[in-house]
């Protein structure tokens, strides 16, 4: 039997279908810059999802837990090795994602004899100012995209687009504060999740998704799941900039929303 280019294309198509089918049901992750740092937010059942990578780097994703774990540890290894051998300033998101992680993910995807990574990952890097913050989204095929201000990973690419629209609304002005960022991220999460699981939305367009539906859905999901949110704090004097937010802090942001 001869392995032809046609077989390669076919196998890539099969892999893509297989991976996307499994990713569709994943819980989205929203990332957004705010005045005092960077926020990543998601909803989860039991497993922790947002992780510190380095002093100014964090990461979250959806997909297969052990695949995410491999990426997480790979990124931490690279970051610490570089931070020690050179300097913490040399540990940047583009080196970690672009050189340490992406090629391996790409290789696994292209190697038909091995299992591909079933993941979409979101990396966030905090800069000195919000406009210097950077987000990288990494796809299961090794492709990555860099974004400023906000980014998202979700069950489908369309869902991700819809989330970014929620994170950076057209009518918004200036850099949000933490409370606003949390509220936008939660809303974006609900929209992203709905887009991924409800095939009708794509046909009917964004207008068909009513305010009421988003809010009811989010409320239901928040009762069933747990909100996980973490920040890199721009102004803390502590060595560790990364911190998981407490439930009270998230509730405070929500109660402050009355009217806003």
């Amino acid at each position, binding site marked *: 039997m001869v392995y032809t280019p046609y077989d390669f294309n076919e196998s890539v198509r099969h892999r893509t279908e297989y991976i996307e089918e499994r990713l569709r049901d994943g819980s989205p992750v929203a990332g957004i810059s705010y005045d005092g740092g960077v926020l990543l937010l998601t909803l989860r059942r039991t497993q922790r999802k947002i*992780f510190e990578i*380095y002093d100014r780097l964090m990461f979250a994703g959806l997909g297969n837990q052990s695949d995410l774990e491999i990426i997480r540890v790979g990124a931490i290894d690279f970051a610490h*090795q570089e931070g*020690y051998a050179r300097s913490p300033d040399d540990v940047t998101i583009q080196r970690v994602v672009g050189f340490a992680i992406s090629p391996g993910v790409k290789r696994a995807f292209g190697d038909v004899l091995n299992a591909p990574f079933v993941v979409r990952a979101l990396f966030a890097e905090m800069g000195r100012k919000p406009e210097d913050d950077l987000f990288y989204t990494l796809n299961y095929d090794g492709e990555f995209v860099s974004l400023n201000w906000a980014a998202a990973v979700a069950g489908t690419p369309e869902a991700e687009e819809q989330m970014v629209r929620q994170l950076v609304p057209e009518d918004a002005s200036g850099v949000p504060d933490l409370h606003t960022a949390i509220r936008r991220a939660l809303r974006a999460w609900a929209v992203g999740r709905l887009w991924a699981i409800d095939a009708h939305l794509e046909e009917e367009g964004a207008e068909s998704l009513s305010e009421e539906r988003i809010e009811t859905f989010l409320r239901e999901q928040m009762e069933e799941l747990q909100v996980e949110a973490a920040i890199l704090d721009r102004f803390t004097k*502590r060595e560790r900039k990364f911190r998981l937010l407490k439930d009270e802090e998230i509730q405070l942001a929500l109660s402050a929303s009355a009217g806003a």
Partner: protein
Amino acid sequence: MGERLNANTSGDFMMLLRSRGLWREGETIPAEPVQASLREAHGTTVIALKYREGVLNVGDRRATSANAIMYDRAEKILPLDDYTLIAIAGSYARAMEIVRYLQHSFKYYARTQLQEMSLEGKLAEVSRALASNLSMALQGIGMFIPVVSAYDLDRGEGRIFFYDGLGARFESVEFGAAGSGSERIRGVFDYIIKTRGPFHEMTLEEALRESLLLLDIAADLDSATAGIEKVLPIARAVTAEGIQEITEEQLAEIKKSLKL
């Protein structure tokens, strides 16, 4: 990335560095004892005192090389993490490299294992780093002595540990000191305790006052110690709230009140 299943899963940073050939051990060791012409920079006097809220560390800023003064802005008190300070005397080059190693080692463990390294674990890590320095120390270079101050969150108190060059660790009740100047002022510590009471009952201001006096006396007796006259020393404290930087203004204020 498939080989990751056999990877370093214990959060051991030294193992990671060794596996990547980044741990400098042996490669620079000369076969013969080093000639006096290699004049490495040495840090001199550092002091750690307990006080009411935690532990205060103060160090003069001189670095010497044989009988030459190399530098008068050396930093010999460094944070290892948010609850641990290290004060170093001896070979500046090796000390700085090991401090960088320890900082990364603690962070690497916390980030990969998703829990903080225990205080006991951190102290053992310091011993291990010192022991790895032995072959160089035997050649007459690279020897340094650290004093580690930590705030023990479980016990709710500051603790001081001192080491020998091989890595033996001892816990100190009231104070710790290292460097050429420290030996000459040993009796002064006891005199202060016997006349003014134990350090751990002092306020930060009182402890700062005593530590500046101690440095001043050390400078009188030891040519390698700069004291406090020309350049203010460096001072940091570790408390339940983490690392506190003592400002130059605070130090200048206290220096003014001393009868030197």
